[in-house]
């Protein structure tokens, strides 16, 4: 994006005008003038498993925020001010999408496909499927299935408060777990699993309880909570990791 001096001055005047009158027409003009910056930054996040169009949208949203917050009085160049805002928006997008940025797209897609196949087969067979069965149905190799299953650990959508990654409209696990909770008296859970787990969010305690005290399998928990077995796997391993960290920290 190269602007000559007179363009820059014109833009600066527009920013000043917008700062005083907040005219939406001026705002749109400023956003349009900087779309190139948004696209440039979006491209730097390409090839990480998200379509470029989506990234440009996300970056543009960051740009809108930057334009609205920019204060020309402070003497900063707009691009200097906007870049961290736009990059922050892109990073948040990846975080909310759940994937740690480094997972290759091929593995992500495989992971999603295998997740679906596991749940389909579990329903069909009424038991947890084997790697062989999954590979056969998914049309892939057993090694790839093992890799895809493990890719779950690189998936970071582990927050119970976050919406489900495969469906942004859903209310998140918190809502889904709500129905189960009354059955599980807190005191009983604590007695069963020890005081350490009180350091975890209550909803994660429920999952640990179902798995390790009630002896439900991951597939059973998945079915009961209406989420995928892979998701249960991720949440459990995250909880266990937190527990280990808590156990190590002397308090």
């Amino acid at each position, binding site marked *: 994006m190269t602007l000559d001096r007179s363009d820059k001055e014109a833009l600066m005047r527009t920013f000043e005008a917008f700062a005083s009158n907040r005219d939406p027409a001026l705002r749109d003009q400023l956003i349009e003038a900087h779309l190139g910056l948004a696209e440039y930054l979006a491209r730097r996040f390409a090839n990480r498993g998200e379509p470029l169009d989506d990234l440009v949208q996300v970056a543009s949203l960051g740009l809108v925020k930057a334009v609205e917050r920019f204060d020309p009085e402070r003497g900063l160049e707009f691009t200097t001010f906007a870049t961290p805002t736009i990059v922050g928006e892109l990073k948040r997008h990846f975080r909310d999408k759940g994937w740690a940025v480094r997972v290759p797209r091929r593995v992500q897609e495989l992971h999603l496909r295998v997740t679906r196949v*596991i749940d389909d087969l*579990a329903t069909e067979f009424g*038991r*947890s*499927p*084997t*790697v*062989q069965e*999954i590979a056969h149905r998914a049309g892939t190799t*057993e*090694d790839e*299935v*093992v*890799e895809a*299953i*493990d890719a779950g*650990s690189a998936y970071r959508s582990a927050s119970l408060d976050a919406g489900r990654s495969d469906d942004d409209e859903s209310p998140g696990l918190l809502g889904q777990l709500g129905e189960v909770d009354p059955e599980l008296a807190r005191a009983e859970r604590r007695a069963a*699993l*020890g005081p*350490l*787990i009180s350091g975890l969010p209550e909803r994660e305690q429920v999952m640990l309880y179902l*798995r*390790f*005290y009630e*002896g439900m*399998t*991951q*597939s059973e928990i998945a079915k009961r909570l209406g989420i995928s*077995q892979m998701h249960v*796997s991720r949440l*459990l*391993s995250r909880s*266990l*990791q937190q*527990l*280990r*960290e808590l*156990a*190590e920290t002397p308090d």
Partner: protein
Amino acid sequence: MTDVDGEEVRLTMPATPQLLRVARLTAAGLAGRLGFSVDEIEDVKIAVDELCFALVGSKGRPGSLTLTYRLGNHALIIDGEGVFTSVVGESPAPSELSAQILAAVVDEHEFTRDGNTMRFRLVKRRLVA
């Protein structure tokens, strides 16, 4: 399924938690080879994580961790041995909660310590329908 009875795989790695993924992935691969279900594989991964973590701690320990995976008749046996130059602090045996978790996911598990050497063993049997 090919006959895998008696196969043995051994891994030696620095005792750092960052490498436990390799231990887990190997366990998952071998469990898959034995025809374990996804749930059973998840169980093995949880157990490997718990026991290896007890060996290496959250920050790692100076020394190495060796894992020996044995494929038996419908069973996966994993022996872990951590040989360290020093072990600072409390005995790192698995906590009571950890023991409860292990009991829920594998058929047998034990953890022993002899000075600066720590060992564990876990056995996971496949449910044969």
